C-alpha cells in the first residue's frame, strides 16, 4: 500500500490510498462470486489488504454487489473488527477478557492511553501506534495478555508496555 498523509487539516489521519481495483475484483468476484451474503467476508478481505476500509474501496464494493452504501456503513460500524480509519504502523491490543481484567488489564489500557495520549480504538497523530482492546483472545492462563502486531505477550505488565513504548518513541 502506498499513500501520503492528507493535508486537509492538522492532525488529520486520513490517508489518500491508491486502490487496486483488480485486486478488489479478485476478492469480490473471484473469491466470493459477487455474492451479497458474503459481504462481511469480502469486507474482511479488503480490510486485510489495507488494514482498514478505505472509502473508495467500500464505494466500489457497493456498486459491484449492488448493496446500498448505507447498508455497508451499517455493517462496518456494527461489527467491532471493522475500521473506517487507517491504523497505525503498530497495533497494540490489550486483552480485556475477564481473566485479564482481574489481573489488571484495565490499568494497562489506562497507562498506555495516558502516555500516548490516545483512547482505545484511536491512532497516534504520527500514525505509529493504534491502541485497541479485544474482548478475549482465549489465552486466559497467561493473563494479562497484550498482542502487538499479532505476537502474544503473555503475563504482560506495565514494564512490558513501557519497554515497547520507549522503543516506539525512540524510532
Amino acid at each position: 500500500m502506498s499513500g501520503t498523509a492528507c493535508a486537509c487539516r492538522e492532525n488529520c489521519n486520513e490517508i489518500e490510498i491508491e486502490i487496486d481495483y483488480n485486486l478488489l475484483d479478485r476478492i469480490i468476484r473471484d473469491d466470493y462470486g459477487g455474492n451479497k451474503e458474503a459481504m462481511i467476508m469480502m469486507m474482511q478481505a479488503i480490510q486485510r489488504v489495507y488494514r482498514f476500509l478505505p472509502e473508495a474501496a467500500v464505494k466500489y464494493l457497493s456498486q459491484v454487489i449492488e448493496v446500498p452504501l448505507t447498508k455497508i456503513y451499517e455493517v462496518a460500524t456494527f461489527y467491532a473488527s471493522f475500521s473506517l480509519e487507517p491504523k497505525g504502523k503498530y497495533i497494540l491490543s490489550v486483552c480485556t477478557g475477564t481473566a485479564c481484567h482481574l489481573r489488571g488489564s484495565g490499568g494497562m489500557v489506562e497507562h498506555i492511553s495516558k502516555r500516548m495520549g490516545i483512547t482505545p480504538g484511536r491512532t497516534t497523530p504520527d500514525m505509529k501506534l493504534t491502541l485497541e482492546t479485544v474482548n478475549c483472545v482465549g489465552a486466559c492462563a497467561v493473563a494479562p495478555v497484550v498482542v502487538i502486531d499479532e505476537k502474544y505477550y503473555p503475563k504482560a505488565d506495565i514494564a512490558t508496555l513501557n519497554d515497547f513504548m520507549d522503543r516506539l518513541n525512540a524510532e
Partner: protein
Amino acid sequence: MIEATQPSNSPPVVTKMINPAALELYRQELQSRQDPDAPVVIVCCGTGCQAAGSVEVVDKFKEVLTGTGWSGKVVPMIKPTGCHGFCSRGPLVIIQPQDLFYQRVTVDDVEDIVNKTILNNEVIKKLQYKPANSKEVIPKAGDIPYYAKQTRLVLKNIGKVDPTEINDSILHGSYSALAKALTRMTPEQVIDEVANSKLRGRGGAGFPTGLKWESCAKQEGTRFVICNADEGDPGAFMDRSLLEGDPHSVLEGMAICAYAVGSNRGYMYVRAEYPLAVKTLTSAIRQAEALGLLGENIMGTGFDFKVTISTGAGAFICGESSALMASLEGKVGRPRPKYIRSVEKGFRDSPSNLNNVETYANIPDIVNRGGDWYKSYGTERSAGTKVFALTGNVYNIGLVEVPMGISLMEIVYGIGGGVPNKRALKGVQTGGPSGGCIPIPHKIPDINVGYGKLAEAGSIMGSGGMIVMDEDTCMIEVSRYFVNFLVEESCGQCTPCREGLIRMREILNRITQGEGREGDVELLDEIGRFTNNFSLCGLGTSAANPVLSTIRYFREEYDAHIRDKKCPAGVCKPLFHYEIDPETCTGCGLCKSKCPVKAIAGEKKKTHVIDQSLCIKCMECYKNCKFRSVKIM
C-alpha cells in the same frame, strides 16, 4: 500452523472411501503401519502454549531429530496437538509410550529431552510437574490430579491427535459414527438416540438437542445445519480448543445432524479472533472432502454434506442464534423475536438447526455408544459432561471436563488446585458476562453444577466460563466490568437492554468512583429486573444477572462503597490507597524495584514508604510483597 512430521512409515495412498466398510479397512491399514514402540513427542500447540512459545519448541524438536544429532533406531514422531487444557503450565510436552509429562518446556530444554529422555530413558527432574503445596513430583500425565479427576468424553482426543492430520483422527475412530448412522440407522433412529441421551444444548440455553433436531426434521424445504462457534464470552475458550484440537469430531457431529434432519448444507460461524481455529478447520474440511468423508456422495452412500466456514466480525451478539443467522446472510447481527423459531424459519428463511460446537462434538460418541451410555454420566436433568474454562484466581488454569452435578468446590480445589498466593476464595462467576457470581464457600457452602441448580443460585450454565475470584476481587467493579462489556455489545434495537444497561453502567461507575448515593442499590435492582424481564433476546434477558447476583450476595460491599467510601478489596482506585505496614516490612526492596513510577522510597532493611502523590495504584507492590506488608487502606 505447524505441519506434522511424517511418521517413519508413510500413510497409505489416499483414495476416496467408496463405502463405509472402506473406512474401517483404511483405519486398520493405518494401525498396522504404526510402530507401537516408536517414541512420540506430543507438544501442546493450543493458543495458551503458543503464547508461551510452543511453536518454537516444535521447530527445535524437528531440527534436533532430523539433524545429525539423532542416533536412535526409530525416529520419534513429533506431534503438535490442540490444547491439553493445562494452560498455566505450558508449553507442555508429553513423551509416549512412557506418558512422561514435562511442563514449561523451553527451546533450551529440547536437546536435553532428546538426549536424556528419548535416547536414554532418563527423566529430567526440573521439567516435571509438582502440584502446589507438595514436594512430590508426578511423572505421568495420567496421574496428575488435574487430568485424573476429569471425565474426558468430548475432550478425549484433544492432546492425543494431531489436528492437522486427518489420518491421526481416523486412527482414533473419527467418522466411524457417521458410517454407522449412514448404513445402520434411519434418520429417525439417530434423532431417537440423541433424544434418549438427554443431551442439552451446550451453548448456554440448554435446549434439548433431540427435540430441536426432531422439530427441524419435520419442516419442509431446504434445511441448514449451522454450528455456532462464535464463542464471545470473555474468559471462555472451550469451543476454541475443540476446533483447534479435534475439528473432526465437530464436523462429524454436524454431518450426522445433517443426515438426521435431512440437510446437505452446513455453515460454521467462527469468531475471527480465533485465527488458528479457522485455519485448522479449513484444512480439516479439505482433508475430509478428499477422503470422501464430507462433501458429495459421502462414503458412496449418496448422502451429500458440504460445510462452509464463515468468520464473525467481532460482535458478541452474533452468538445469539437469530443474530448469527442474520450475520451469515451478510447483514448486521440483530436478534429477532422468536415466536417463529429458527428450526422453522432461520437462515435464508429456511428451517435451520443451530447447535453449539460442544453439542456437535458430543454426537459421534452418542451414536456409537448409545444414548443410555451418555446419560449414565451426569444427573437426571443435566445429563453427560460439560467442559468448563476454569480461569481467574486459581492455580490450574485451563479446560476441565466434568460430569454434570459435580460439586463446584471440587472443581476449584480438587481439579483447580485452589486459590494461589494464600488468598481466600470469594466466589465463582459462571455463565460469562450475563451469568452470576456464586459466593462459595462463605455464603453458599457448595453447589452442584447443573442447569437447574445454577439458575436457582441466580446464575446460568452459559457456555462454560468459570472464573474464580479471590478476596482481592471487588464485586462492584466486576459487575461494572460485565455491564460495560454488555453496553458495548448490546445491539441497541430494544429499549430495556440498550437504556437499562447504560443507566446501570452510569450508577456503577459512580459507585466505583466514590460518588455512590443512598438508594443506588435499590435503583440498580429495579432497573436490573426491568431489563431482564422486558428485553427481546437472550442477551438482554440475562444482562442484569451480574448486577442482581452481586446485590443478592455482596450487598455489604455495595454499602461499603456507598456509605463508607471504601473499596474493601482495594480495586476501585479513588476508594483506597496502599500503605506499607512498618511492623512487618523487612525492607527487602522488592516493592521499590517493582514500582514502575518510583513512588516507593526506603533504605535496605528499613521500612519503605509510598509517596501517595506519585502512586498510580497499579498493584505491583501489593502483588509482589512476600510479607503482605503492603496494606489496602
